[in-house]
């Protein structure tokens, strides 16, 4: 299953352009890829380690604004501003994660939610640096005078990055470190009793997922040429968690599918104009009622059952 899933993803990325009719479709595909990047990381934290974060949009926003501000206001070349922003966010996550991850369940949810809201308010208020609620423009990603521009170039860049990240994530999950995460999700006490330092491993997952979110945020900013504080807001954090759960937790491919489904759905539904929100909400509810474990695990089970019957 493991190798097949990755091959399928790579194939999808390679073949998709054949089905994309115009620039707008490429835009959606790129957006899906960027969302999927965040979701793969977030799934590590929520699905495998069994923690929760309702503030991940904060990391996304900090990565975006971090790179944007360094590049636009301080003149840093973007191949430097982006990694610097990601590293900065990783450090922040490491500092903040230690105390926060001592909390459990909805207390952890609240703490991460609070942090995310604080970040988004600060970004929206400090308008001299960030451009305030109206946002700021972001220079394109460029190295040695050559800019990464145009939908096709971005599509391949994001596609390659996504496939690479999924490969890395799958390796991580199938390693002792991945097992340690799943173990502390299963029973933190028993995990400690086999020598797993649960605090350290939770922090690892938190920092990794924060770094991925920041990377995706930075890339989004450079791709769109613009960034607003809404990208760091509570509603965006909720969207991200919803994508992970919708696609299927503890499933890297679930994270990708969830990101794809919930990025695509609003785009499709804009045709319904003012009914868009109602239908979106209804689809979300119905899918979760009938597929409580998420899209991918439910489909996997159905496939396995069908295979058994065919034998």
């Amino acid at each position: 299953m493991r190798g097949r899933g990755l091959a399928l993803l790579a194939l999808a990325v390679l073949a998709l352009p054949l089905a994309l009719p115009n620039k707008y479709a490429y835009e959606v595909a790129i957006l899906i890829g960027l969302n999927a990047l965040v979701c793969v990381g977030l799934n590590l934290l929520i699905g495998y380690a069994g923690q929760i974060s309702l503030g991940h949009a904060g990391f996304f926003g900090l990565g975006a604004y971090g790179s944007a501000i360094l590049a636009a206001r301080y003149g840093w070349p973007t191949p430097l501003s982006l990694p610097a922003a990601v590293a900065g966010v990783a450090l922040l996550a490491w500092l903040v994660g230690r105390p926060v991850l001592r909390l459990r369940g909805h207390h952890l949810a609240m703490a991460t939610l609070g942090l995310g809201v604080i970040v988004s308010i600060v970004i929206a208020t400090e308008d001299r640096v960030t451009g305030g609620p109206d946002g700021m423009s972001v220079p394109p990603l460029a190295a040695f005078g050559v800019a990464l521009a145009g939908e096709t170039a971005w599509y391949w860049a994001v596609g390659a990055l996504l496939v690479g990240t999924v490969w890395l994530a799958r390796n991580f999950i199938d390693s002792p470190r991945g097992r340690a995460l799943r173990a502390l999700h299963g029973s933190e006490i028993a995990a400690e009793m086999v020598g797993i330092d649960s605090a350290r491993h939770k922090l690892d997952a938190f920092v990794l997922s924060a770094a991925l979110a920041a990377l995706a945020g930075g890339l989004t900013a450079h791709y769109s040429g613009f960034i607003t504080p809404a990208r760091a807001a509570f509603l965006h954090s909720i969207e991200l968690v919803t994508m992970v759960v919708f696609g299927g937790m503890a499933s890297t491919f679930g994270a990708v599918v969830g990101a794809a489904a919930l990025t695509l759905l609003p785009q499709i539904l804009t045709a319904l104009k003012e009914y868009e929100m109602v239908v979106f909400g209804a689809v979300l509810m119905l899918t979760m009622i009938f597929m409580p474990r998420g899209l991918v695990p439910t489909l996997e089970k159905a496939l396995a059952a069908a295979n058994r019957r065919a034998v």
Partner: protein
Amino acid sequence: MLLRTEELSRAFGGVAAVDAVSIGFGAGAVHALIGPNGAGKTTLLNLLCGIYRPTRGRILFDGRDLTGRPTHEYAAAGIGRTFQNLQVFFNMSALENVMAGRHLLEPCGLAAAALRLRARVREERACRLESEALLDFVGLAAWRDAPADAMPYGALKRLEIARALAAKPKLLLLDEPAAGLNPVETAEIDQLIQSLVTRRVTVVLVEHNMKLVMGVSQHVLVLDYGRVLAEGEPAAVRNDRRVIEAYLGAEPAHA
């Protein structure tokens, strides 16, 4: 003495669950910890494996003072444990449970894990083989790839033992391994415990099943109200008047 305590105490609020217990467990034997309900056996066990911190006293294991260290350091020192209320990793398969148990034997860097370096792949294969061997040892070969939440109670108790053994502990604390098992399953546990000694694992057993305790252990410790009431060989303890009183109540005085 492999494991020694000095005046070990743990109080909850005003109640002393374990009170100034100074005991020693020698290597290579099966020790049993018994006592009426509420005697403090599980609290003592939790202290010995680092899940509770003592309010007073010290714990020395294999020459090291482990008092107050975090739980995973107790594991790293060589103490393993099974749980009375199963703490199986229900989100994984039986094999994965045991593989997770091997954590201490597999230091794994982030880069090595993510990049799937060749050495890592070899280690993973070795981990899998050793874990399969452990499942065989406890008699769970048939359940290897089964999700843990599909396994029956008796199998899960043995799975916990396999998982605890995966870390190659020097001392294994078994918390009521026979609880809820029928006589056939209990006999299997009895055999399993005896084979642990041949593997040079010291065992400390908390158990209510007296037949199992008397049959398998070399050294029995009786707790009552958080204090040591008696200790010695099984036969001696069984006939100790104070122990009988603690379990059954004092004999009424009659002429």
